[in-house]
């Protein structure tokens, strides 16, 4: 075991993982975090806690992670390269680990211009692949980037993102290979709507032997309404929503769109369960946490394994 996190144990035991996501509040209301967490408890193996998501200031990811731990859930500490330099990153990793954090997701982060402080300096001292490698060096070699020794190194299960839908397509598996070389343990993909493209990407990754070296969790976000689908299609960088998905949502009565969105997600999950090279699903039910119990039920991923 690299970290002994619940997620790692679930994956190591060969179970199909099911992870969730939670965005911290734009303030100090811990109750809001606890309430969202209750919907996820028992329905997912671990919960990603976003880090100033879309470059908007929120309660820090590690702080919300601690609330999750108090609530008996396992957090996945997301860390973006936009807001901290290597000193702050390493310090936060030590601190978060000390308080029980065992998973991390290493991300570049959206550019500041998307958020509420568009004039802020983007730090980007290191990039997301270098962050993966930094956490691995801390864990496996017990070293800081300076070369200095860490007393009792943090044992973190290291995650990163992958986007099979960004061009150049041919490059995407090579980027995955790069992340594997840097030391990543698991990948959570961008939200998948274009299944054809995703199948091709996984096949390429299988052919290159990459899916034997890393766990792949397929990203799923059920569409709540047609407006959301359009927004994701037009406005969110790196997300591809095929027209036929939108047509399908439009094809049902207005009251049934959300239900249809969940239906589409469940069909995807059924396919992922059978897909070689996919080891689980990352459910990003953004601001829809209370629906997770129902989604998990309908996706037939309950009960979650006890490992």
């Amino acid at each position: 075991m690299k970290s002994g996190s619940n997620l790692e144990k679930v994956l190591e035991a060969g179970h199909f993982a099911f992870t969730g996501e939670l965005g911290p509040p734009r303030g100090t209301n811990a109750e809001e975090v606890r309430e969202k967490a209750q919907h996820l408890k028992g329905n997912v193996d671990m919960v990603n806690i976003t880090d100033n998501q879309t470059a908007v200031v929120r309660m820090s990811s590690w702080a919300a992670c601690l609330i999750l731990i108090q609530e008996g859930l396992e957090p996945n500490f997301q860390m973006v390269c936009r807001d901290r330099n290597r000193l702050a990153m390493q310090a936060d990793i030590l601190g978060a680990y000390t308080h029980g954090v065992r998973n991390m997701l290493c991300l570049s982060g959206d550019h500041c211009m998307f958020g509420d402080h568009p004039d802020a300096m983007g730090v980007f001292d290191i990039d997301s692949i270098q962050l993966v490698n930094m956490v691995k060096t801390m864990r496996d070699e017990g070293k800081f980037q300076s070369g200095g020794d860490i007393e009792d190194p943090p044992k973190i299960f290291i995650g990163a993102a992958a986007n099979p839908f960004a061009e150049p397509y041919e490059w995407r598996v090579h980027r995955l290979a790069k992340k594997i070389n840097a030391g990543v343990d698991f990948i959570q993909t961008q939200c998948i709507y274009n299944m054809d493209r995703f199948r091709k990407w996984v096949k390429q990754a299988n052919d290159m032997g990459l899916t034997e070296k890393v766990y792949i969790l397929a990203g799923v976000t059920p569409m709540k309404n047609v407006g959301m689908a359009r927004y994701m299609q037009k406005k969110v960088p790196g997300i591809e929503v095929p027209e036929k998905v939108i047509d399908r949502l439009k094809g049902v009565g207005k009251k049934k769109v959300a239900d249809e969105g969940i239906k589409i997600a469940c069909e995807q999950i059924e396919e992922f369960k059978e897909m070689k090279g996919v080891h689980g699903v990352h459910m990003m039910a953004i601001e829809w946490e209370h629906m997770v119990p129902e989604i998990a039920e309908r996706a037939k991923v309950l009960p979650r394994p006890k490992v």
Partner: protein
Amino acid sequence: MIVVKRKPFEEIKTMLKDYKKVLTLGCGTCVAVCLAGGEKEVGILNAELSMARKIDGNPIDLGATTLERQCDMEFLDELENVVDEYEALLSMACGAGIQFLAERYPNKPVLPAVDTTFIGANRDVGWYEEKCRSCGSCVLGWTGGICPVTMCAKGLYNGPCGGTDNGKCEIHQDQPCAWFMIYERLAAQGRLDLIMEFQPITAWQNQKPRTLVQPGYEKQKEAG
């Protein structure tokens, strides 16, 4: 070249409000080439300032000189006999030139008339693009001659990120993704292997003021 942009007129006018006799100093190198701080631009700025101050009923006496280079003490010496006639110096050189001028004439208020913007290249007349952030450790050799430090909005060394959208950067549809271009160029050259390797963390060379003495010139520096 170093590309600069003239400051907004009102900002310049406000800086000069307490002075009645000012010398405007152009520079004949980069800022002249990028059409913002050469002899011609000095003339235009002075004409505008004179006119505005006359209308305000507070006339100003403006001198004009354009030095070959303000970032070179040798050329700044030329001003020795004239600076005393002025209350302040208004420089249209880049930030380096302005600072050297202020250092050479420490008793005079020295004011910037331009904002130094970037190291860039001439795309067309009057059209410049930023190309280099003088990181001090050039990677162009393995990035297909495209600078990721400057041209990638996140300065990534292991790009492209997941935000690249049909060759565009996530920040704007008008901004090409540097890493997409790097990929395309290296692919066309059959050199993709250069970016397959993981690039370790960068040892930044630009985090403190830098001084450079070229090999062979150390003695001169020691002599002061």
